[in-house]
Structure formats: structure tokens, C-alpha cells
């Protein structure tokens, strides 16, 4: 890259009045949302708290899917549209293992073992599918114009949906599955906390920490960061670019697999077109936090989960939830396209 010519100009450009106005307007919007949230919190604290809990549970799931998106985007700048549908396949697979194979319908020693096994299998399977997709399709398109891999991802997403539609998977209608915890939970004061929420959060956070560790502390992570910055330079430094990208796809797929199992255990239904909706929400979460930034994806997931849960309960109602999510996305694009934690110079992955 022609760094020198540009780096020489160290004078900070004056902020245009328009930019100042835009950021002021953005801050005003954020302030309005915060005031509204506080107002609702003071008006009916109990309902508010239970909505927060429900939102955090959903948010953790969004965060897990968003992590997969953000890692793949971070390394090859591909919006992997099929990621949401991979997640959908993982929900069905984990349902088949847990319910059809081991009959998990209540909490117990065997059930925990079965769910843990299902977690491992669905993570491995999703990772395998993702790696295969990279191998067969994306790798050949790495140097093609951006439209090509994006449309390929859409095509793959259709193929996954077709597979999910088969009768032995989830069929073309939503399917109910029994889950380990059901609706069980415990109370803190008047607020009911389902066990599933606790479980989901308890699995999401360690996975995030693991990902951060892999990316920032290990050799493979260093290779990822190098490939994300400049593939050709990384190759010159002796990094196996193909293997690094494959590894990232495997990690992303594994996260989608984990999210699939957790979604099934906390919601208990599967549907072949589930992945599209959740994938979109998760991608919005990834952008919200700053795409390519791991902590940002998790933060974005939680924020979006809580926001849409507050909307469902207190603002416009569930039928408008996609509108709220996408309004957030569009406002974000206008006011802060780099996301909350991302900055224009942030290192990718």
C-alpha cells in the first residue's frame, strides 16, 4: 500500500460543521433512548428487570452468532450470509441428538451429559460444514469482485435452508422439541430468572474469552491478524494463508453450532427459515459493536437483545421488532458506521 504519501500529511483535518452536527444529533438520539430506558425503569422496575433478563438471554445468543460473523468478516471482509442458516442447521442437529437420540426432557445427570455431547457434535458438524463451504466456494472467489462471494453466500444459505426443510430435519413447519430445563427458573426478588438464561450466558462469556485468547495470545491468532491486514504480505512472511482462513471458518462454524444448541435448549422450537432472521439480527449486532471486533460483537449482541426485549414488552410490541433492530442499524450507519467499539484504525479480527 502506498503508505508514505498519505502518512506524510500529519495535519489533522478540521472537522466540518456538518460532521459536528451529525455527531451532536447522534448523541442526542442516544441520550433520548437512555432517558426513555431510565424512565421505564423507574416507572415499573419489576417488569423492567424481567425484560432485561429475557433480553440478556436472547442477547447472549445473538452475541454467539455475531461472533462467528465478525470473525469471518474480520479476516476476509465477507458477509457470510449463510452463517445464520448454519446456525439453523445446528439447532436441528442438536435437537435430533438431544431429543430423538437421548430423550432429554428434564434436568438430570444423563441429560447434562447428552446435552454436552450434543454441544460438541453440533459444534464440530457446523465447523465442518463451514470449512467445506470455504473450501469449495469461497476460496475460489477470494480474488473475485466482492459481489461474487456475497451472492455465493446467499446461494449457500438457500441450500442450507433446503436441507433444513427436509422431513428428517425440521420440515417446512416449525417443530417443537422438549428441552432440558423447560420453563424452570429461580426468583431474585420478584424477578424470575430462567435457568436457560444463566446457562446461555455462562457458556457465551467463556467462549468469548476463549476467542479473545486465541486471537490475541496464540500463534494462530497472530497469523489471523496478519492475514486480515494484508494477505500477500502475510504469505511472504511464511504464513499459510489458506490454513489460517480455514481455521477462522472452523471457529466461526463452531460458534454457530454452540449457538444452535443453546437456542434450541432455551426456546425449544426450530424452523427452517429461522436462520435468516437471527442471522440478520446477529449481523446487526456485529456491526453495532464494530465489525471485526470480538468484544464489540458480544456487546452489540447484548445491547440488541435487551433493546428488542424492551421494545417487545414496553414500546411497540413484538410485531415491530425487526423494524426496531433495523432502525438501530440504519441510524448507526448514519451516525457511527464503525460501531461502538470499533474505530477506523482498529485492528481486524
Amino acid at each position, binding site marked *: *500500500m*502506498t*503508505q508514505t504519501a*498519505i*502518512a*506524510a*500529511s*500529519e*495535519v*489533522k*483535518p478540521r472537522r466540518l460543521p456538518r460532521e459536528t452536527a451529525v455527531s451532536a444529533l447522534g448523541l442526542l438520539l442516544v441520550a433520548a433512548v437512555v432517558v426513555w430506558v431510565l424512565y421505564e425503569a423507574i416507572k415499573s422496575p419489576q417488569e423492567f428487570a424481567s425484560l432485561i433478563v429475557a433480553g440478556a438471554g436472547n442477547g447472549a445468543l445473538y452475541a454467539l452468532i455475531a461472533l462467528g460473523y465478525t470473525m469471518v468478516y474480520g479476516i476476509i*471482509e465477507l*458477509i457470510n450470509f449463510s452463517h445464520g442458516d448454519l446456525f439453523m442447521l445446528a439447532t436441528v442437529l442438536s435437537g435430533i441428538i438431544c431429543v430423538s437420540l437421548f430423550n432429554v426432557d428434564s434436568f438430570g445427570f444423563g441429560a447434562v451429559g447428552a446435552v454436552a455431547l450434543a454441544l460438541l457434535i453440533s459444534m464440530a458438524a457446523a465447523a465442518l460444514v463451514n470449512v467445506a463451504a470455504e473450501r469449495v*466456494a469461497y476460496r*475460489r*472467489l477470494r*480474488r*473475485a*469482485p*466482492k*459481489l*461474487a*462471494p*456475497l*451472492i*455465493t453466500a*446467499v*446461494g*449457500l*444459505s*438457500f*441450500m*442450507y*435452508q*433446503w*436441507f433444513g*426443510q427436509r422431513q428428517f430435519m425440521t420440515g*417446512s413447519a416449525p417443530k417443537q422439541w422438549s428441552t432440558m430445563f423447560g420453563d424452570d427458573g429461580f426468583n431474585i426478588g420478584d424477578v424470575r430468572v430462567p435457568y436457560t438464561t444463566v446457562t446461555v450466558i455462562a457458556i457465551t462469556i467463556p467462549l468469548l474469552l476463549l476467542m479473545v485468547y486465541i486471537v490475541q495470545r496464540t500463534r494462530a491468532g497472530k497469523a489471523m491478524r496478519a492475514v486480515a491486514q494484508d*494477505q*500477500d504480505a502475510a504469505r511472504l512472511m511464511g504464513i499459510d494463508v489458506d490454513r489460517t482462513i480455514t481455521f477462522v471458518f472452523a471457529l466461526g462454524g463452531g460458534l454457530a453450532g454452540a449457538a444452535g444448541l443453546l437456542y434450541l435448549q432455551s426456546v425449544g422450537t426450530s424452523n427452517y427459515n429461522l436462520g*435468516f432472521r437471527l442471522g*440478520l439480527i446477529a*449481523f*446487526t449486532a456485529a*456491526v453495532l459493536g464494530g465489525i471485526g471486533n470480538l468484544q464489540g460483537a458480544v456487546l452489540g449482541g447484548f445491547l440488541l437483545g435487551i433493546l428488542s426485549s424492551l421494545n417487545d414488552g414496553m414500546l411497540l410490541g413484538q*410485531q*415491530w421488532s*425487526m*423494524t426496531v433492530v*433495523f*432502525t438501530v*442499524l*440504519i441510524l448507526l*450507519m*448514519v451516525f457511527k*458506521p464503525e460501531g461502538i467499539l470499533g474505530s*477506523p*484504525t482498529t485492528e481486524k479480527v
Partner: protein
Amino acid sequence: MSTTTPAAPPVVKPPAPKTSFASRFGWPLGFLILAIVVFSFNQWILPETNGDFRTGYNNWLPMTAVNEAVIWAIFALGLNIVVGYSGLLDLGYVAFWGIGGYVAGWLMAPFANQVTPAWANLSVNIFGHPLPGQDRGIHINFWLVLIIAALVCALAGVIIGAPTLRLKSDYLALVTLGFGEILPEVFRNGEHVGPDGKWNITNGTKGITGIDQIPTGPFQLIPGVPATIGTFDLTFKFIVFAFLLAVAMFVSLRIREGRLGRAWLAIREDELAASMMGVPLMRIKLSAYAVGAAFGGIGGVCYATHVGGVLADRFNFSVSITLLAMVVLGGMGNVWGVTVGALVLAWINSTGLAQLGNVWNDATGSNVNFASHNFLIFGAVLVLFMLFRREGLIPETRTKQVLQEPERGEIESLGAEMEGTAENTAAEGTKK
């Protein structure tokens, strides 16, 4: 005297014009002849044939499917301006279909009476041709509504595009996708909005019915042409839709040759270089959005008259993707390719797949429900085309060069990043 006359300069034959008659007029003439054949066959010959042939023909190529395919082609041409000409990925084109449809629903149906109680007795008729007994509400002439819808959609396109066109292409795709999701949700839930939920702007999932008829104007003087094209005058509707498709093609082809079209192609191929050459990026991109959206508005009105109503459930993401597939498979940027791709895919979606499946099942004695595999077929076709024939079935020469030739790595190794990273490096430079 050596007055040899200077040798006459060698006669330079002017180079033969690059475009022969066939290549210039082949496609338009083909389209015209095809349209005439389809019309006259369905209008005069088919009713005379025997029952078996007619049933068989109508199973394979019913007139409604043909009309619908023509409308799809109008949409595909609109999307082609955004995606094919300007290289801006739009994943929410269905929004314009919806807006066009609801413009028709408001201005060409009795629905306006239900919007708010204060309008219950509203009755406006500007050259409108309401269905019998449904002459309340607003009724504006079909041809005027086409123009209004085109303008409204162009405005919507500018509103959608304005905040996002400064962004990198991925983000643009995502934001258009967001609009494509928000608007259908507004259509679905628009029954009780505004203060106290008193306004009914879309009639919710019930949709709007009773869309006006298409007037034929001076053409009704021709014997046999009805004064208004009702619900079942499918062949005359075909003429109207095919005419609009021809207009869309003509506009696409002519704009492409002009200043605006060349600016679109320039930003598609290299945004940075185009802006260096003095192409005002924002204005040109916005105009691409506006023109593409205007086509969508025209198509939306056509579709509303085609089905005689507007249904909110029709507008979902798969429509946007199908349109994108039509553009990509037909040949991005090539008007004829996109038209052929749209007609073929629309036919496959409506009747072709099921009919081909029946033939397959009869021939092999198997029992495969082909329609249930459309996800696999669509997905596999998209992936295979992207892998092996990225420029589409009937490629445009320029697109072919862009999509097939450049090895990005080669150019990058010379020191230039192709896609939008220039801003990043600039920002990095100022941070130091």
C-alpha cells in the same frame, strides 16, 4: 519537368461500422415479434384450438404467468440499473415493489375511505376507471398513477440511499436489506398507526383489493379493443405490460449511452478513479438509486393491477433475492440478458418447475415434488454461476472484462487496493 503529381493519398476506407444491422436491431425486433406472436396466439388462435391442446398449453404457459413474468422483467431491469450498471448491491429492492403497489392501492381503489374516519365519504375521480360499484375513494387514471408511483419511488430511493451511499459496499447491501425488511413490516402492521392507532395506512395483512381497471384511451377506437382492460382481459394486459417493459428497456439502453450511464459504469469499475475524473459520486449514485426505484414503482403498479390488489405478505426477502438472481444469471448490465433471465426465472418459479417435474415423474415413474426443492435449485444455480460463469448467461462485454479478467492480487501487489480501503489508509495517516 518532373512534375510528377504527388501521389494521391492512399484511399482510406472508412472502417466498417462496428454494429451491423443484426446486432443493433436484432434484439429489439426479436422482442417486438415475440410480443406480437404471444399476443395474437393467445388472442385469436388459442380460443379456436381444441380443448386438449388448450389445457395442455395453459398448463405450460398460462397467460397470467406470462404477464407476471413480464412484470418481473420490469423489476429486474430496475435492479439492473442499481446492481448491473452502478455496481451498488441492493438487497431490499422489494421495498420499491411494495411502495409502488401501495401507491396504486391508495390512488386506484376504494381503500382511501378506510384510511381515517374523516375520509369515509371521500370520492375523487381523475379520469379513473373503478370496478363497477366501487367508485368511492380515490380513483386516478392508471397512466397517471404510473408516473406518480415512479416519482414516489424515486423519492424513496433517494431517502434510502442518501444516508448510506457514503459507506462501503457491504454496509450498503446491509442497509438496503434493512429497508427491505422494515417496509414489509410497516405494510403488515400498518392497520393501526399514528396517534391512538386511528390511521389505517395499509389495511394490514388483509391487504387492499378492488384496484381500478386500465383504460385504453384512444386505442379503444380500434375495433376489438375494450375501453377498459378488466381483470380477465389478460391478453390486453399483456400488451400494456409488454409496452411498459419495452419502455423500461429503451430507457435503460439510452441512459447507458449517455453521460449519466457512463458515469454509473465508471463508478462501478473504479470509484476512486471515477471521482478523480470529476464524477460527483454521491449525486450519481443517488440518481442510480432513484432511476432504479422508479422502475420498481412502475412495476409495483403493474403488479397491483395484475392481481387486482395489494397483499402485504407478498413483499419479503425472497423477492429481492429472486430479482438479484435474475440480474446476475441473465448477465449483469446487459439489458437483454437481464430480461431473458427474468422471464425464464419467473416462468420457472410460477409454472415451469412444477411442469418439468411432472414430465420427469411421468418419464421415470418416480414421485419427486420438484417445487419443494426450489431452495436447492436456486441456491445451487447461484453458487455454480458464481463459481463458473460469473458474467451470466448473456454477458455484457464490459461486465465480462470486469468480472472475469482482473486478478485483484496482481493489481494490489502493484500498490493499489481496489475496494474502498483508501479512506482507511487516509484515516490511519491522519491519526499518526
